[in-house]
């Protein structure tokens, strides 16, 4: 099995996942709530107008046609005409895809920064801990990692808001981080991105602080596992320096499993991002999603689109991780079955 067929297999799997997510969205939302067209019917309309509207929105379609239309709508990824449909309540009259773009960018920035930060902080500490196994540094690293495992993210973030927004800024007059997210109107401009990045520094830092522990533990355990292997003993017997053993031999065989860890970490990061957005008032798709599910808003088209986009994000990241895996693990590239 070559690398290409492996990738194709993963792609097919991703498409199946997307289909399952879309279908379950369809089942959950449309069967439970009926047709959201009822929300835009107006008392000023007369019967014929209502009928026309209902027909235009496909209210009288059989379920299978509705489902097929829905699938077409979703799998166009908001790029062509229906643009995921029209928002009924939240962004009245806007196409969902169009309203989503600035929010999606904010969320992707948050997710990306958090993930990259976790990796950048977690892996070196894990390597250090493995290199100094049993010493104080190792114990401290493992202890802190175990601690971050148990702390609820929202608690740390609320504490951060309290500390930087109230105690430091209001009481002591020291301004370090902005604690609210309030960037100017979105534009495809580098200054906008810089400003947004600046304003989401505290959320990203807290997300990193909460999540880097699992990376430390994972890297450390993998490295320790690798260090017991025979080829490490060989390398040491050859007289290589400990640094060379660690980075050239042990770390290289640890990298592929770490990339799979990325795929497993993404749903967790999304969970964290939704909560973070609601704490810091970040106007991303997480808060959008929460709002759309509120009882009095019930804009389920948005909820469907956001769930679908989340799944898409996960699959894209998985795919990237798979490609990385192929580059890092030559056995896959040349088609040796693991």
């Amino acid at each position: 099995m070559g690398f290409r067929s492996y990738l194709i297999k993963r792609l097919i799997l991703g498409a199946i996942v997307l289909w399952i997510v879309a279908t379950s969205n369809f089942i959950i939302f449309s069967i439970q709530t009926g047709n959201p067209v009822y929300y835009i019917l107006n008392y000023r309309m007369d019967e014929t107008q209502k009928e026309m509207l209902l027909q235009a929105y496909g209210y009288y379609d059989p379920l299978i046609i509705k489902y097929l239309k829905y699938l077409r709508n979703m799998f166009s990824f908001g790029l062509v005409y229906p643009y995921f449909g029209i928002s009924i309540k939240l962004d009245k009259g806007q196409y969902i895809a169009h309203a989503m773009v600035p929010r999606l960018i904010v969320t992707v920035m948050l997710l990306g920064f958090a993930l990259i930060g976790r990796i950048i902080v977690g892996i070196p500490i894990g390597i250090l801990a493995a290199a100094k196994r049993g010493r104080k540094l190792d114990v401290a690293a493992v202890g802190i990692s175990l601690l971050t495992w148990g702390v609820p993210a929202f608690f740390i973030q609320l504490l951060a808001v309290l500390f930087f927004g109230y105690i430091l800024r209001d009481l002591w007059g020291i301004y370090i981080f902005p604690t609210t997210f309030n960037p100017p109107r979105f534009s495809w401009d580098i200054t906008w991105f810089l400003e947004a990045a600046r304003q989401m520094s505290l959320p990203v830092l807290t997300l990193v602080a909460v999540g880097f522990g699992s990376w430390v533990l994972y890297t450390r355990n993998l490295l320790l596992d690798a260090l017991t292997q025979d080829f490490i003993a060989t390398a040491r017997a050859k007289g290589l320096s400990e640094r060379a053993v660690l980075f050239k031999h042990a770390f290289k065989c640890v990298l592929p499993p770490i990339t799979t860890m990325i795929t497993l970490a993404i749903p967790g990061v999304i969970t964290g991002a939704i909560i973070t957005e609601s704490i810091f008032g970040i106007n991303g798709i997480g808060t959008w999603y929460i709002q759309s599910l509120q009882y009095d808003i019930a804009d389920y088209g948005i909820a469907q689109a956001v769930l679908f986009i989340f799944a898409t994000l996960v699959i894209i990241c998985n795919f990237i991780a798979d490609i990385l895996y192929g580059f890092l693990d030559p056995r896959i590239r040349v088609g040796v079955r693991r």
Partner: protein
Amino acid sequence: MKNLLKKLKKTFPAKGLSRKILISSIFLLIAAILTWVAAAYDLSPIFRFAGVLEVLLACVISLNAMMMLRGEENLEISTFLALCIGLTVTLYTYGSKLIGPLFFAGILTLAAGMIGIYTFKPTRKAIWLRRIKGFWFEYSHNKIGLVGLGILIIFIFVAIFQEPIAALSYPDPETPELAEHFAKPSWIGLIDPSASKFPPTLRYDLYWTVYNITLPEGVSIIQETDKWIIHYTGSKEIVVVLNTSFEYPYDPPFRASYVFSWSANPEIVGTIRYSIEINLTTPSGKVYPLWDQHWWKYKAAVCTERNPKPPPIYYPGGRDYEDYYQNKPYPWSPINYSNIRPAYGIYADKYGGKIPTWTAKQPEEIVDYSVSRYPPIRLGYPEFETKKMIRDLFSPSGTFKLYAYITFVPLARNATCEITISKMTINVPGLVWGLLGTDYMGRDCWARLVYGARVSIAVGIAAALIGTIVGLLVGIVAGYTGGLVDESIMRLVDIMLCIPVLPLLMALVTFFGRNIMYIILIIAVFGWQGLSRLIRSQVLSLREMAFIESAIASGANRAYIMIRHLIPNVLPVALADFILSVPGAILFEAALSYIGFGDPTTPTWGREYSIMQEVGGIYDPSTGVYWWWFLPPGLAITLLCIAFVFVGHAVDEIVNPRLRRRR
């Protein structure tokens, strides 16, 4: 059909794994699911039926377990399962709304597990004891594990004895207005000297005594338990003065309220006028009117259509209406009451006329300026100044005196009137309360914290247990069966690992109801994939081993091998994974509650933060952070999760072969 039955009989022969126990556990499972659904929808008849069914089946299972003991069966797995299920069900239903059949089913299952342990064959018992002893020996050398176990035991203790522990502060977590909103903990004085004289919640029941030592002629006072009936017959204008006092040694509160009732009963209407006036004298000698009948009359005069320019309103303090508004900020400056002279006297002086009193019969009226009706003391004071007024009123602490002036003005000879006045109750909502203060509604924070423990532990354990059992079974089946089954299960696992759980969970919870049972189930549904991968890989290496081969050679079928050989071998790994996945479930529930998608009827730790978010803030710039409300739930979640992580880490190091090899 017949073939299937035959196959079933062959798979589970009567002499082997008891068929009865299998069938009854299937029924138990169905009953449990029914109960679950019924409890979620609160369909009580089904719930009751399922509960009864469950109790019966728990009996059957425990009996079967004992029956099986007579044969040559080992019962490790069923005992373990019985213990786990029994513990979870018991812990969850103890004292909650589901108490009843489920609770007893839990107890029975627990008992079956215990019986199972006690009736092991001696050799098996010895093996298990040795295993447990060996495990405990390794475990007791792990400091982190011991710390975690200690914390965990404390939390479980709190969860089980939740009611008495909450009662240390206040037994009910939902009662509002126990004290001032955001009242501090009562031990605050120890760390903050400025708060050492904050008042606790006070309630004074004040009983009147007669101030005039010699009562005027014609007056008689009859005291019932907390009522004073003042009877007057005569022709003269007289004043009867009652008084009482109370000690208030604290700082001024934010609010205060008073309650009393009075009624008047002139025998012949129109023959006598009467009036009641109650004044409060502070230790510094200032006098504040609490109740004055006239006031209502003036108030009525102000707002009529016929009377656009009302007559000047006269206040007992010697100021009239305009004066009252012009001379802010202290319109209630003290009245000189050194000579006992009720208001009507001044009124009569100034306007030289009649005393404006009711002449009609007055039914009983309860005067209640209570905390809920803000402001508490409003007689004669603009409402927005209440806080300041209360501070002025209570600012020099000491002995406060209350005087009640009851005036009779007969209009005819030998007129008769009876006035009834009750005791005076003064309520002061405290600025300090209980072990952990109060939240934004004046509810007890300690009780809410303690009540959250059981829910969190139960959610964590139940979700992790269901997830672990499913993951264990799926992993074993996938690993041992192999082929298409294995492939499809593993692809399913891959797919489920890709789905972001929280958003999906939010959608599901929105539509299926914000019920803690659903939340547990959904967390469990998305919590078994990692374990099943792990178990599968273990089983893949186990099934090549010699003892499996010899079992196959001696004619054991698949089910037998899976249940008797594979499960016991991977059980330790599953145990470690179970403990390690509890904090995940707890944190997940907390996060879900935090964003506002939790069960609104259950007091969980995460919901506290959702409430904080709704109410708008964890600090007040003027008074500081409400740390007694904000910190404890988060710290409790953290501690509980860390305890589970520590224990799980320690167990993992002992049982996990991959980690053990390194040691």
